[in-house]
């Protein structure tokens, strides 16, 4: 009797859910617990478990590293202000005015995302570095004295962050502007309000929650941003919290306790900010967010439209064209100069980059990891998405929460956590590609699950139900209806994950071993140890490889991608 009852309870679904909860919990929560333990370790930082526990690591932050905290906050505030200014201006121009070429411009706004902050930071240090930076070269060539341009400053870090985070702000603010029913504004106009009055009393209050949300979100991102602070901050001796964490692990002996305390503090602050952001989005959005996208009637700007076009073009120029041009020019010379009559053109940098064993393996490893993690990951994530959003399993809420958790942890703190966890686990995974694969999969979980969920939720449930009513079993329905409909979404998620893996930096810097190098941290170390010219070549090779990989993939799956675009 009771065996039958037990069996009924322990059916396959419950087992599957429990297994998933355990595996995901192991991947997601365990490293963080290791990190928490280490942050209270006041004895030998390499000892595990800790010999003595205390708050010293946290107190030390306030004691010795206060200037780092102020740096971090000042830079984040400057960068956020600039990014929101950029994002708001662009969003307003591209959604509410009749700027020429609006649709094309809107698509171009994606480009800074593909550039990545790392490549952008490298390019801008070539452009505006002190002394030999291109801007200073031009200044002196034009007869100016001294070298007025110096990107290695707090403002410089903030500038590069803002340039590349601006596109995130743009997407978020544009979404809130697009989701506003134009009838809300039109009814104000009909009642007799002027354009300006409508803007002040209707448009702005309705858009404000969106802008506020974007500000918080971007600010949190800025606090945890690593690439720009590393490339530009280290030469300028300006440390922020992320670079200090990194430094702490590089010292001898590595001060993991200190790094863990800083990492967890950063996590706590970011977590709080993202929570507030969620809260604002959920309650402050009024009725403007109906899930529907409207195409608001654009305002006729007359001749001003061309000026606005110029604003958008300037952004693309500063964030994409100029950096790329600078990197290409640099990579093709023996000594980087912008004065073409002094240039000595050469392909030697590419030859060196490609002939260096470590670079080649790093690039190969990154592509391999991207392919592997994206392919296996997408399948696992598709199952997770189905469980979370379409099944009736108990505990699917817990699965969702766990899966989304890595989003709240700054990438590099998570990398640190994984480092500490796997240094101390009896499985010799540290220093291998397997650990990197595991780390990538875990940090990509929220990205992949969210983009897949978007597709799953878009598929009308009755499309599946209809297949069942027609007599199809679950398997047949999945094969003939659900999966074909999901195909474009799965492919898009695959591409996202692949790209994110190949450019991953934050977690990789901690987990890369001498025999398991990946490309982004290799570029950073080349930047630190060899010349700008070689680094530029490597950055371009990375960018180019990703582009080629994507083009090949698009070719292979042409039929499917057509539905995508």
């Amino acid at each position: 009797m009771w065996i039958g009852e037990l069996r009924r309870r322990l059916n396959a679904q419950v087992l599957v859910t429990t297994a998933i909860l355990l595996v995901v919990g192991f991947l997601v929560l365990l490293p963080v617990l290791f990190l928490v333990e280490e942050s209270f370790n006041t004895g030998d930082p390499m000892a595990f478990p800790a010999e003595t526990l205390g708050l010293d690591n946290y107190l030390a932050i306030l004691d010795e590293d206060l200037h780092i905290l102020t740096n971090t906050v000042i830079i984040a505030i400057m960068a956020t202000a600039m990014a929101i200014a950029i994002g708001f201006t662009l969003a307003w121009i591209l959604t509410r005015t009749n700027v020429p070429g609006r649709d094309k411009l809107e698509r171009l706004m994606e480009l800074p995302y593909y550039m990545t902050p790392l490549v952008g930071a490298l390019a801008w240090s070539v452009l505006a570095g002190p002394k030999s930076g291109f801007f200073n070269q031009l200044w002196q060539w034009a007869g100016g004295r001294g070298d007025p341009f110096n990107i290695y400053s707090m403002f410089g870090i903030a500038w590069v962050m803002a340039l590349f985070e601006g596109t995130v702000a743009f997407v978020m603010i544009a979404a809130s502007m697009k989701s506003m029913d134009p009838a809300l504004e039109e009814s104000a106009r009909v009642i007799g309000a002027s354009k300006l009055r409508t803007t002040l009393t209707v448009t702005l209050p309705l858009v404000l929650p969106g802008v506020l949300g974007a500000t918080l979100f971007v600010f949190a991102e800025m606090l945890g941003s690593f690439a720009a602070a590393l490339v530009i901050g280290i030469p300028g001796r300006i440390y922020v919290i992320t670079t200090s964490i990194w430094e702490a692990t590089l010292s001898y002996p590595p001060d993991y306790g200190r790094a863990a305390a800083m990492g967890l503090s950063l996590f706590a602050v970011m977590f709080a900010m993202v929570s507030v952001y969620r809260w604002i989005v959920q309650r402050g959005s009024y009725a403007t967010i109906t899930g529907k996208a409207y195409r608001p009637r654009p305002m006729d700007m007359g001749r001003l439209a061309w000026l606005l076009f110029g604003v958008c073009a300037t952004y693309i120029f500063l964030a994409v064209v100029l950096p790329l041009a600078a990197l290409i020019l640099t990579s093709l010379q023996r000594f980087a100069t912008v004065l073409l009559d002094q240039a000595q053109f050469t392909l030697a940098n590419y030859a060196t980059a490609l002939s260096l064993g470590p670079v080649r393996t790093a690039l190969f490893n990154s592509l391999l990891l991207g392919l592997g993690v994206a392919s296996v990951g997408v399948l696992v994530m598709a199952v997770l998405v189905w469980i979370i959003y379409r099944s009736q399993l108990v505990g699917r809420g817990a699965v969702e929460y766990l899966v989304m958790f890595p989003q709240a942890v700054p990438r590099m703190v998570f990398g640190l956590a994984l480092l500490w966890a796997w240094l101390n686990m009896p499985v010799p995974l540290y220093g291998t590609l397997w650990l990197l694969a595991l780390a990538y999969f875990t940090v990509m979980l929220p990205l992949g699950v969210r983009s897949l969920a978007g597709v799953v939720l878009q598929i009308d449930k009755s499309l599946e139900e209809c297949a069942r009513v027609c007599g199809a079993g679950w398997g047949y329905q999945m094969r003939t209806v659900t999966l074909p409909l999901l195909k474009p979404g799965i492919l898009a998620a695959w591409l996202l994950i692949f790209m994110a893996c190949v450019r991953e930096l934050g977690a990789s810097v901690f987990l890369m071993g001498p025999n398991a190098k990946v490309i982004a941290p290799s570029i950073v170390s080349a930047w630190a140890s060899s010349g700008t010219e070689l680094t530029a070549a490597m950055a371009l090779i990375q960018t180019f490889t990703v582009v080629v990989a994507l083009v090949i993939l698009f070719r292979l799956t042409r039929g499917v991608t057509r539905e995508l675009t």
Partner: protein
Amino acid sequence: MNASRSDARIEVSDLVVSYGEAVAVNGVSFTVGRGEHVTLLGPSGCGKTTTLRAIAGLEQPMAGSIRIDGQAMYAAGERRNVPTEQRGVSMVFQSYAVWPHMSVFDNVAYGLRVRKQSREEIARAVERALDLVQMRHLGGRPASKLSGGQQQRVALARAIAFSPTVVLFDEPLSNLDAKLRAEMRVELRELQRRLDITSVYVTHDQEEALAISDRVIVMNQGVIEQIGSPEQIYNSPRSRFVADFVGSANIIKGRLDPASSDGGLLAFEVEGGLTLRVSAPHAVRGDETEVAVRTAYIDMQARPGDNHVRGTVRQRMFHGDFVQYIVDCPCGSLIVRRPPTNLLDEGAEATLSFSPEHCVLLAA
């Protein structure tokens, strides 16, 4: 009136469906006879769609049973719940659910392919189904390139292609514009007769329900208010809800006078010292306080044998197909709809006249 047990195709008894705390369907029982076309009618949230989905096996009921051709599809007592795909019913969805990644032909052929029919059989059956909905010329077209009306036809063809005996319709016409809806209504009725299918149809449109059904089941808040032929539902509403929801009716308040009832008719005292003679289509309890009179059944000329009420025309609205008057009477304001001939002016005196059998006592 109800189909006898032996030729009932669908039997639903004491069905209960709830979502967490909310009870969507609360003890619904009815039968659908072989070849019969039954409509579940009611406002949104009344449980009609949930009932339909439970028959299809798309909702899990809490209690009761559902039988199709005598076979238990769901039976709470036997812990039995046949999965959707094994129930052999077919369904047309409100959103059409036409698969956008397939051609029209593939959509319609789906049920046949699931049933592993031969290539020739499939081709023949799809052609026949597309013929029936006049879509044969569009067989090769991708389903994503169809208009709303065309999608609706494809959904219909797909639902009947594999010759199911039971077809369920979930508000299939609600997304079409008024003109197309009227056209499709005629076609649906035609199709249903020609194919001899048993169908259960869900709608919130009372006109549609009356026009295309053999029997109508009016639902409200998870329970059945009344079951009957369209004429019964319209002429003899049992409750105030049915009188209000189906067609337009005047509700007159008063009380029964058991002393002066004669023959089959009852005496009903209303305000203003009037006594109306009313009929009761159901068992009388004695404490009923409302009668319903359809706005279309009130004449403005006195007819012998009728109830007569004098009043003043307060408002006249010209609707084209009819004229609507609001007439102030001692028993309250009555709405009257007459053909647009012999117009009365606002302020005119009128004698309203309606026969006792159209004056229906509502259940308390």
